[in-house]
């Protein structure tokens, strides 16, 4: 722990948090919120939680900022002024926040010190994972073996949460069946259409294949280094969103149809849950990958766990990519999958 570094990061995090709440311009608030995520990402890195930092950078600072921007462009850039009762609500809010903060601070007095090797979290279950990850699963990255195997059941449901998020956006914003041609143009006239600049288009064109290649590397190398299906999926989605921003939405939808997107989103979680169910059908417990050695050629039960993890990571990657693109398309185009942003 380098306290000077932490002090600066925490001070910046606080400034960004207060600024993003108090800014009247919602576009600036969204950008500052992205900066907040980036500062948090630095903090996770400093703590040694590189996988978390990776996710925070990709999701918090990356795609969620774009979602906010898309939402701001379609609603209003300014905070709606409230006429009465403002002070009262502010007071209640501040009092509640201070009270909860005070209680949490009081509780933290009992916590073990920063990075204490004798803290309960470091001596109870963690050593078991660290010692046994190689003999149990042949996966050197402990984070991956905990997320995809020891606690893989949680990750399956987390992937389902992502799926639900995409489906919820579609269910609320999406317009099916009665789409009329004449309702689109009026709204989009006001939205600035990016992508006229050939410089931006050319730059993005070059970047997209490298991003996708990197995404696949992040996915495939998750067993050995920080990364995995989640981060890989977000980077893949970011490459598609980049096409949508630099050209227009139609250019992206031409490459990834919305229908296929929904199929990918379902398919991804089905790969995950299906792998679990396959273990069940082979006579083992749900998600007990080791039994997969019976159907995988030349594989020991331990390597089967490693392969099983790769399978579910691929599933996660599918769902995350498809859902991120789906959310972007629906927010950016008001659910019409038309041109937007």
């Amino acid at each position, binding site marked *: 722990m380098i306290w000077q570094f932490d002090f600066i990061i925490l001070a910046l995090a606080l400034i960004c948090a207060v600024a993003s709440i108090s800014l009247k311009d919602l576009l600036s608030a969204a950008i500052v919120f992205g900066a907040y995520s980036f500062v948090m990402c630095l903090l996770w890195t400093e703590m040694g939680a590189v996988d978390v930092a990776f996710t925070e950078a990709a999701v918090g600072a990356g795609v969620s900022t774009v979602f906010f921007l898309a939402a701001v462009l379609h609603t209003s850039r300014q905070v709606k002024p409230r006429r009465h009762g403002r002070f009262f609500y502010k007071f209640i809010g501040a009092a509640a926040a201070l009270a909860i903060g005070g209680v949490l601070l*009081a509780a933290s007095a009992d916590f073990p010190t920063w990075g204490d090797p004798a803290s309960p979290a470091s001596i109870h279950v963690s050593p078991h994972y660290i010692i046994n990850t190689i003999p149990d699963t042949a996966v050197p990255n402990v984070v991956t073996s905990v997320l995809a195997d020891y*606690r893989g059941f949680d990750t399956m449901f987390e992937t389902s949460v992502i799926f639900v998020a995409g489906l919820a956006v579609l269910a609320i914003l999406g317009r099916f069946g009665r789409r009329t041609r004449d309702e689109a143009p009026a709204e989009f006239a006001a939205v600035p259409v990016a992508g006229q600049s050939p410089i931006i288009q050319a730059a993005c064109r070059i970047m997209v294949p490298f991003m996708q290649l990197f995404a696949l590397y992040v996915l495939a190398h998750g067993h050995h280094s920080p990364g995995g299906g989640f981060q890989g999926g977000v980077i893949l989605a970011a490459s598609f969103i980049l096409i949508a921003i630099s050209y227009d939405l139609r250019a992206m939808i031409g490459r990834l149809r919305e229908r296929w997107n929904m199929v990918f989103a379902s398919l991804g979680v089905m790969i995950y849950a299906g792998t679990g169910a396959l273990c069940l059908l082979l006579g083992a417990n749900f998600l007990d990958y080791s039994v997969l050695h019976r159907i995988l050629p030349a594989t020991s039960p331990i390597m089967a766990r490693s392969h099983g993890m790769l399978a579910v990571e691929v599933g996660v990657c599918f769902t995350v990519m498809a859902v991120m693109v789906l959310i972007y398309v629906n927010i950016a185009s008001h659910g019409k999958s038309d041109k937007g942003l």
Partner: protein
Amino acid sequence: MIAPEQYPVLIVTVPLLSAFLINLIGMVDKRLCYPASLLALGASLAAALAVAARVAATGTIHYHVGNWPPPFGIEYVIDHLNALVLVVVAGVALVAAIASKRSVEQDFPDKRAQFYTLFVLLTTGLLGMTITGDAFNLYVLMEISALTNYSLIAMGGNRALVGGFNYIIIGTIGACFYLLGVGHLYIMTGSLNMADLLQLLPALFHTKAVLVGAILMLLGAWIKMAFFPLHGWLPNAYTYAPSATSTLVAPLMTKVSVYIMIRVLFSVFGAYYVFTVLPVKGLVVWLAVAAIVGGSIFALAQQDFKRMLTYLIVAEVGYMVGGVWLANQWGITGAILHIVNDAVMTLCLFLFCGIVVHKTRGHRLENLRGLFRRMPVTMAAFAVGALSMIGVPPTAGFFSKWYLILGGIDAHQWGFVAALLFSSLVNAVLFFRVFEIAYFEPAEEVHGHGAAVAIDEAPLSMLLPLVAVAIGLIVLGLYSTSLVSTFIQYAVPAGI
């Protein structure tokens, strides 16, 4: 092919996998989504019944997901308490799904695939929260049920969007509190497994961090169940939700949250810590009294039938929380029995409400005019549900209320006893007012004066579930003693 040892995980994973399939099937043919969801929920209910039978015969079942032993992996623990709640959740969800056919076709014909996918996933989330023995796994499933719930509510259009948005904010704060609480326990013990926490925590009972963790988890559960001062999100969200949504969430969300409270109190912290170390026993019972009285009074003030029912839910939550914190055998038995009974009663009332909305396109009290003549069978079934809410024997509602009153007397909590009696009185006034409107006030004449009112019953897909649930209420009442002796008596923590 699949051994009975695997049934516990099937309760959750069958609807999970089916939900994604339903989404894909919906792309091919929207009409197939409805039967597919019935199949999925039916299979889940069958597994839940099989597991409950095994628990009743042989006691608690442990299931290790991924074959990792706890506390390293995630464990499913099914004891007498959640075996019962699982059957209730799966059963109510199936009935709600059967009845949803017409209102889904009416409300969102183009979004049937999305609706049923979310519907089945919401049920998955509730079942998963109920079955798990892992404090963090519970949080993940809480996220699933919450997200699906918000979106199912928001599908109801403009006012539902506002109600749903408020619910997102408050519900997220509730879930955050729960997660923070779990985080505190993890920092102090290094474990997320409930049984392991129960072993590790007693050595740390004196620390402030565990106290704050307990308060945070409790507050999280209370926000989720709309316990009285924290109930603000519930009436709008449930009133403006589409009928098919409210039929599922109104009976289940608050009840599962009450179950979570009981599970966290007794399986993570232990009865000794909750009732002896924490100095809040009397305070919580008085909060419950406030919930019962407040909910009842607000219900009296409503002109909207569905909104009146939502305030009754707030009052019923007070019953269950108060019953648990009476801290005696009777009170906790009554609270657990009331989880079952209230889920079925609320289901009955909201099924009826769904029929009213389907037939009259509204849910205000004046929409009920003349319904006794138009829909005699529907009204008879509704009357059973109403009598059960009031607490008239032999309907189920009487028995849990009876246990709760006995518990209140035993604990000398006279305020709680008075609140229960007051609430029964208010329910009687409310429902007899509804009967009066539906029986005596004539329907608005559309086809000229003096025309005989033709019988115009609800469609069978809505009527049959309602009648079945009404009969179920009486059966539940008649068999409530065996329910207590087979399941609930083992669910009450020992040494109280």
